[in-house]
């Protein structure tokens, strides 16, 4: 049964009709890829374009020359350093905290049968569907009353909990795919419950945890609405809110905005790409074969 999921079985090569059709699909795929990636291309190329080409009525797909002026202006923009710091503090703390809580809950839901388990899962699924504004208004008022406006902790708590339901359900999906027999045999061989978790479950869970953390990190890093409402102090802006400072009454400095956006996106893209391989294996293969 392990062969049925492999994308390229030799059987396909034996069938000439498939290989002939493939050229057309491949061309179509390249066009699709170009369309999907175009905004990314435009972002990067615009950040390297001289400013006189950006403020031009005749936009060209390829710049006449490349320059780092836009990056220089972006980096010199006020509060760049503090914005990086804010984003890092808030998203990393939220993700680490969220993953710990989510893993504990996922183990409980995936490994035990207890009263309220189904209800908890349903609540977790349902809360993700709440519109952001339904949460924003009361959270803003509450943090305002508690002095949590302009403080990192307010934002951290919001981000941590907003990644929690999704991460729990996702990690649970990985937990239930780890056969209980593995854990049991480790315990028969003398492991404690903790030992079995650390030596057997955790390594098998790692791809799932990695994938869940990436989703959580990307969500926290990209969030701007709560950051915009809950943080009013310029020196505590997260990167996304900081991006808004490129738009003033006099217009938008698109060159610098694109350069700054590129800088912000690079870590996300790299992280996403690294994890993609792991995610794909996590998604397409079970931990135990046969």
């Amino acid at each position: 049964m392990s062969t049925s999921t492999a994308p390229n079985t030799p059987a396909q090569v034996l069938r000439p009709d498939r290989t002939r059709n493939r050229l057309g699909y491949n061309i179509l795929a390249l066009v699709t890829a170009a369309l999907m990636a175009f905004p990314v291309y435009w972002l990067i190329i615009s950040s390297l374009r001289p400013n006189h080409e950006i403020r031009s009525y005749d936009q060209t797909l390829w710049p006449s020359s490349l320059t780092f002026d836009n990056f220089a202006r972006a980096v010199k923009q006020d509060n760049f350093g503090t914005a990086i710091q804010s984003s890092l503090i808030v998203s990393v703390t939220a993700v680490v905290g969220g993953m710990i809580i989510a893993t504990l809950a996922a183990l409980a839901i995936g490994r035990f049968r207890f009263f309220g388990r189904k209800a908890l899962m349903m609540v977790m699924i349902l809360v993700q569907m709440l519109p952001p504004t339904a949460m924003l208004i009361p959270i803003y008022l509450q943090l305002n009353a508690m002095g949590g406006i302009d403080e990192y902790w307010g934002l951290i708590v919001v981000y941590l909990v907003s990644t929690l339901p999704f991460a729990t359900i996702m990690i649970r999906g990985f937990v239930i795919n780890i056969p209980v027999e593995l854990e049991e045999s480790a315990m028969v061989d003398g492991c404690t419950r903790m030992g079995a978790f650390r030596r057997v479950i955790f390594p098998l869970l790692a791809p799932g945890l990695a994938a869940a953390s990436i989703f959580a990190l990307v969500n926290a890093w990209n969030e701007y609405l709560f950051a915009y409402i809950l943080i009013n102090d310029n020196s505590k802006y997260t990167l996304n809110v900081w991006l808004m400072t490129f738009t003033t009454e006099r217009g938008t400095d698109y060159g610098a905005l694109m350069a700054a956006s590129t800088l912000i996106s690079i870590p996300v893209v790299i992280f996403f790409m690294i994890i993609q391989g792991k995610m794909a294996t996590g998604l397409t293969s079970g931990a135990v074969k046969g």
Partner: protein
Amino acid sequence: MTAADTKAAGPPPVPVPRGPEVTGPSSPVKDAPRAKRQRKKGELLPYFLILPAILAIAAVYVYPLAKTVIMSFQDMGRAALWGNGETPWVGFDQFTNILGDPEFWQVTGRTIVFMAVCVVLTMGIGLLISLMMLRLSTWARLILTVALIAAWSMPLMVAASVFRWLADSDYGLINTLLADLTGDEKWLGHNWFLDPWQGFGIITLLVVWGAIPFVVITMYAALTQVPKELEEAASLDGATAFGVFRYVTWPVIKPVFTMVATLSVIWDFNVFGQIWLLRGNKPEPEYETLGLYSFSKAFESTSFSQGSAIALITVLMLSGVAVYYLRQLIKTGEVE
């Protein structure tokens, strides 16, 4: 339940993000692996494990939601920000005001139409691309995956900035390209957001573009679970390509498709950021969907109660979809 039953449970279920497990249609006992869960050991342990999660969710979801309900029956304005003054109870006044306001119904209609267009486009294009991915050479699939991941990983804020610039009236690429293609100079300086229909066209483009990677990658993961043998058997027995899809592929991917479609309905109903950011943080009234309408009532007009009441009505509207989603999950055994 014997070990043999567990072994017979077909290919190991695939964890698809937010989706249900996909087991091959050949698996006779779907729930076999789950039945092996421990039932006796550690009576209290699971409660300790879920305690932090419950506290966190209660603090950031349940409490604010309760607060939203309470505020909807009060009249909470600017004074509440400084914590002075009692907030008076007004019963159903907020709701009668809102439901009697033609603007509210206009906003609701706009939200539903916009959601429907986005969902149909996202799911249609997403399904086609994921079906195409099955038929690609490895290198082409890799390139497409990289493009999808690149698009997916782009922060919404950044993507919105790029689209805002692409559609810029003076220096936008879209206008330049249109002027070149049609040879008509009138496109230069064309303001896409003057007419809400065109403006929503750009917004839809951004929403659909941003949602496709998730849909494609999830659907593709589901599609790889369709047993090749079954498809081959069907085509040997004379099924057309459409027949194979309709009677072999579709039944396997249907639960994932329904799930992703339902999620899209909810996400696109709640679209906020794309509109907000493309309109420079100050959307005009004709660009308001329910989320933005509630936001502007709460934070621009500082009538938190009006905003809460609108948010609560939105939640009630969506609850039907949410219940349907839950039922789907229960049917596929996800909530077992």
